[in-house]
């Protein structure tokens, strides 16, 4: 494989692994817990690095991943004391752990190939050159690590699809059905931790937040269906990985940074163009809704007492143009019937009111 292919594959695997679990973080309103975990695993990674001289072996991933669970537990315990609210608990816990990590890096990893900056944005460009031998093939170690995590996350999401879905949308129901929402919660947090640690050397502790949160958020603007959300999020992740790589080559800048930026771009596009949740869609929906409301108000008025356009115009504080427009709609839709010059709402019109007000 050419180095470029390795980088692209590594980035795509990181994007898919993160998008799969990140989607659930977004849906559960826990985006910032993901942020906290990604920072707080740092001391675990550094200690493991100092002990084993590598950052992507299995013991490191599991050991540092456990620190992610500890973080979640610490935040929850602090909230349970009822002395500090959740947002503040997050903001107190993760910087403290991150500070310990930075302190360890600066103090003890001096001169080794783990430095403070790589902590923040990783270096995916090294992926092709950090190799291992697997089944007789020489292959990139970060690629193997991230591909395994992506596969693991896929298995996790598919196997626990029903549980994750119910625990996300209705924890109480999940509990009554005999599932343990707490177990699902900690499994998810554990998966997020492992994913974060595995992505660490390629994308770093902070940019991984973009990989976790942004594709899932963008996907939620396109669909309400969970399986589609997961698919779209993964697709956005992979697309951004490709786009980002080419941007990075063009600008001669950080590859992971460009991938995060590309995800931001995908989010902005979704924000503007998504059919129902996008800015255009919403603007259009609001406009149409306002029209339907006005027409229904007009029908309601004519259901109470017959009248004509001139009388109605005097009663409502509408411009002549508005009255003419709404009048045109209700007559062309045959929602009102005339007796002489007195118009009254007919059966179809009443049905239309019912449809709009819908009580």
């Amino acid at each position, binding site marked *: 494989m050419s180095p470029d292919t390795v980088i692209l594959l590594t980035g795509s695997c990181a994007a898919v692994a993160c998008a799969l679990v990140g989607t659930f973080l977004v849906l559960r309103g826990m*985006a910032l817990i993901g*942020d906290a975990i990604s920072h707080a695993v740092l001391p675990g990674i550094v200690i493991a690095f100092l002990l084993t001289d590598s950052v992507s072996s299995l013991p490191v991933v599991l050991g540092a991943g456990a620190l992610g669970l500890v973080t979640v537990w610490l935040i929850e315990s602090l909230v349970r004391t009822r002395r500090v*609210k959740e947002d503040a608990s997050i*903001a107190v816990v993760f910087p403290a752990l991150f500070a310990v990590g930075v*302190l360890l890096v600066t103090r003890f990893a001096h001169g080794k190939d783990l430095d*403070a900056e790589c902590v923040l944005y990783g270096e995916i460009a090294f992926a092709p050159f950090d190799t291992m031998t697997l089944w007789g093939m020489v292959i990139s170690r970060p690629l193997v690590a991230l591909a395994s995590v992506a596969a693991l996350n896929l298995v996790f999401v598919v196997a626990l699809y029903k549980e994750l879905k119910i625990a996300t949308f209705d924890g109480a129901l999940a509990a009554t059905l005999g599932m343990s929402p707490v177990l699902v919660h900690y499994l998810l947090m554990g998966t997020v931790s492992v994913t974060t640690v595995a992505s660490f050397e390629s994308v770093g502790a902070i940019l991984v937040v*973009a990989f976790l949160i942004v594709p899932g958020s963008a996907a939620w603007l396109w669909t309400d269906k969970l399986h589609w959300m997961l698919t779209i999020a993964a697709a956005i992740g992979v697309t951004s990985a490709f786009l980002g790589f080419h941007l990075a080559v063009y600008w001669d800048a950080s590859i992971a940074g460009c991938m995060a930026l590309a995800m*931001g771009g995908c989010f902005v596009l979704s924000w503007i163009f998504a059919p129902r949740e996008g800015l255009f869609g919403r603007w259009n929906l609001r406009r149409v809704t306002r029209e339907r409301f006005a027409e229904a108000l007009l029908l309601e008025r004519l259901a109470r007492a017959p009248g004509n356009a001139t009388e109605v115009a005097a009663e409502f504080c509408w411009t002549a143009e508005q009255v003419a427009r709404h009048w045109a709609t209700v007559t062309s839709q045959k929602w009102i019937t005339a007796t002489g010059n007195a118009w009254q709402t007919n059966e179809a019109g009443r049905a239309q009111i019912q449809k709009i007000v819908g009580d």
Partner: protein
Amino acid sequence: MVAAMDFTLFNVVLGSALLGLVAGALGSFAFLNRQSLLGDALAHAALPGVCLAFLLGIALDIPPKQPLLLLGGALLTAWIGTLAILAITRTTRLKQDAALGIVLSVFFGAGIVLLTAIQHNVGAQQSGLDSFLFGQAASLLPSDVWVIGILGGIVLTVLGYFFQTFRIVVFDPACAATLGLPVRRYEILLTTLIVVAVVVGLQTVGVVLMAAMLVTPAAAARQWTDRLGHMVMLAGALGAVAGATGAWASSLEARLPTGPLIVLAATALMLFSLLMSPRRGLFWAAMRRAANRRRIAVENLLKDLWRLGERDGRFASPRAVSDVMAVRAASMSALGQAQSSGLVRRNGTLVQLSERGLQHAARIVRNHRIWELYLSRRLDLADDHLHRDAEDMEHALDDDVIEQIDEALGRPGTDPHGRPIPRGVPGSTVEAAL
């Protein structure tokens, strides 16, 4: 101490303390407004601004590391970040947490792209820009300290001036709006002040740790006081102490970064406050719970002794310790406690209620039985549910309440199980002391 400090160190300590002061005071409002992570997002969003300002400096051929130029750039993108967060939460179904996460990570990604592009393309001159990532208090110049001092002074003056208004806008924005206060404008003002504090702090503690500078001192201060004014001042003071301590400690040895040490100092203050503050401290709460548990154990012991007395009518006669312990695996420590408070007398393997112990036991048993009776008559609880409930309540009810219930029930003679409700100490049954 100060005399021994050289001028550079004095500079660094002063700058860090000033930053801690400003961030702590402002952070109090973010903390109370449940926007603790806004500072975090804004700090990350400032990074691309710093880089853009640097590029602008090069393009205009002015010194690109001019502090005010970089601060201006940081302010600009942090502001755009704030607006983006607002716009996302207003116009999409995404909640605050996702909006913060998106802005934080994407802006940071943009910052990293610019930073690495500058490093690769502009080259040598870049050194120093990456100090914004983790902060580099050690490199603070006197001119930087002046900038921090002046900006901080302005921020704190504005905060002091609008203190009362900020209080109501944060506490009850709907009410503030009906009072005719321009709530939106005050919120923007408050966020701007936070942005200034964040931007000032970037040089010292860096992008990632700035959240802690805002929130940790405020969370610590909240534990000590219930007054907003005191809280803001205390948070400022704790922030200053953390800043000075961290900066000083980092000078002790090589390769001790200032930012993390400042944050760890603040975290230590926060933990101490959480545990030891007089009214809200978790340590004291645990002590109170333990004392309560001990009291309940002693009261149960007295009650068991009383019950043993009820069997033969001799309430004050000595019983074998092993018999008493057998009733409910009571602990020896409860016995020791009761003995040292003079409620029981003990001689070898025998234990006996004292005069005071008798009174106390009679009162507890009376409370327990009256409560059971009340539950059974008024709430129609089944008999087998009564005991557990009364068991918990007898230690919590005060005598006034029991007196009222007793009167309301018509001073009954027996409980629902037919056992007598003791009224006063059965004087005749008191036997000679051991």
